[in-house]
């Protein structure tokens, strides 16, 4: 038998069942409602987060699609140009070649050049001395930034108009590896396209596929031992065909 108190409660419940049942039902539904509201709040947060991620991805996709429409054909060429203008690591031969090329293009004869102490890992300071007339020096000033195929700047230029025959100029050549940040936007705009066209207009460089070289390699029979006639089968290169650089004078 139940103890007296419990029996009393049971009697009351039985007596007031028509009241207790709706109240209990209201309490149960209230709990369910609270639980649902909490779920709804969690879902709202999830929607905000997923929606923000999707919007970011959509924006990347839109940017990429626009970029592809605007510059897909030119991007490889301009990137190759950039890597020549500002290479990842310094290459002194290209600087010497650039100086020769600037000299050829402008008519200003670069007679002497020195690598200076102002150089850092990122930029190389070259002091040049040259001879020519005013026109050739003006041509040099017009062309030194890009015409050599290496990007160059000069922090200060002295020009003496009277009896001009020679000049000294300090040129900086740059080299720096690019770090591609994930946050970096790849958005291409019309001004970027204009920029590409301008840069391409300033440099006369032709990229050509290395097809002749490849065919000549295929023609050449590789021997395992130079003193025997045993010929090795040539292996196909796994990487994409490299392109060679030819500058037009």
């Amino acid at each position: 038998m139940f103890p007296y108190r419990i029996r009393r409660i049971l009697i009351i419940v039985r007596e007031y069942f028509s009241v207790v049942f709706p109240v209990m039902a209201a309490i149960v539904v209230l709990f369910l409602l609270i639980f649902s509201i909490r779920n709804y709040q969690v879902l709202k947060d999830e929607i905000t987060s997923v929606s923000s991620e999707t919007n970011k991805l959509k924006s990347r996709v839109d940017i990429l699609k626009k970029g592809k429409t605007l510059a897909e054909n030119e991007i490889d060429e301009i990137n190759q140009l950039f890597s020549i203008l500002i290479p990842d690591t310094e290459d002194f031969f290209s600087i010497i070649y650039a100086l020769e090329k600037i000299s050829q293009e402008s008519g200003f004869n670069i007679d002497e050049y020195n690598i200076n102490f102002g150089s850092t890992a990122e930029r190389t300071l070259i002091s040049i001395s040259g001879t020519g007339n005013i026109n050739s020096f003006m041509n040099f000033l017009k062309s030194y930034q890009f015409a050599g195929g290496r990007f160059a700047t000069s922090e200060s230029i002295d020009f003496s108009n009277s009896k001009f025959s020679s000049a000294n100029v300090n040129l900086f050549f740059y080299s720096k590896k690019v770090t591609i940040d994930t946050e970096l936007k790849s958005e291409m705009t019309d001004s970027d396209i204009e920029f590409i066209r301008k840069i391409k207009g300033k440099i006369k460089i032709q990229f050509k596929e290395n097809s002749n070289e490849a065919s000549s390699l295929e023609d050449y029979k590789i021997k395992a031992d130079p003193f025997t006639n045993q010929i090795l089968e040539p292996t196909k290169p796994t990487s994409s065909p490299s392109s060679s650089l030819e500058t037009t004078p």
Partner: protein
Amino acid sequence: MAKRINLFRLKPKSSLPPLLMFFTSKGKNLGVVFSILFFIGFLTVNLLIFRDRTKIRQLNAQKEVYLKYLMDNKNTEAKFKYFKAKQKQLSDYYGNDASFLPYYQVLTDALKPASESAVLESVTINNKRDSTFTVKILNYDKAINFLKYVESDDFLNNFDELVLTGFNLFEKENGANDSSKGSSYQFSFKSSFKSINVSL
């Protein structure tokens, strides 16, 4: 006074406390009303949950499509990012350049109204737009006119700062031609050009 028991009382006295009695009398109705209200709320919230779940599913499907597109085109995206990074490098380094020719052009254009008399002898321009230049004038009257001109707004508008730092007088050379007879005057200036839009 003697106590009596009322045997004719109609309702038996409730065993519940009065406060609970109040609730029990109204409880049935209140319970039903609140149950219905809460249930409607519950249904509404679950409807919203269902709608949001559908939305999340749609967003996730969209996300997958975008991710797939980005994965398929990751090389192209890397190329554009490389371009942007290099473009920034180039623009930053370009800022180190003196941009001599555009500013030289500004100076020669500014001196054009006085070009008959004034000869630009030497110019130095650096990448902070600071400049020094020397102008030679071949006779006194033209030198005075030139000084008046360099003080005019037409000339001064090209500079943030312009200071006459030196003045030299060169006497007539013996045996010189007629055209070069008379004293010549040399003015040295220190200036800072107004910024002009020098793009690549």
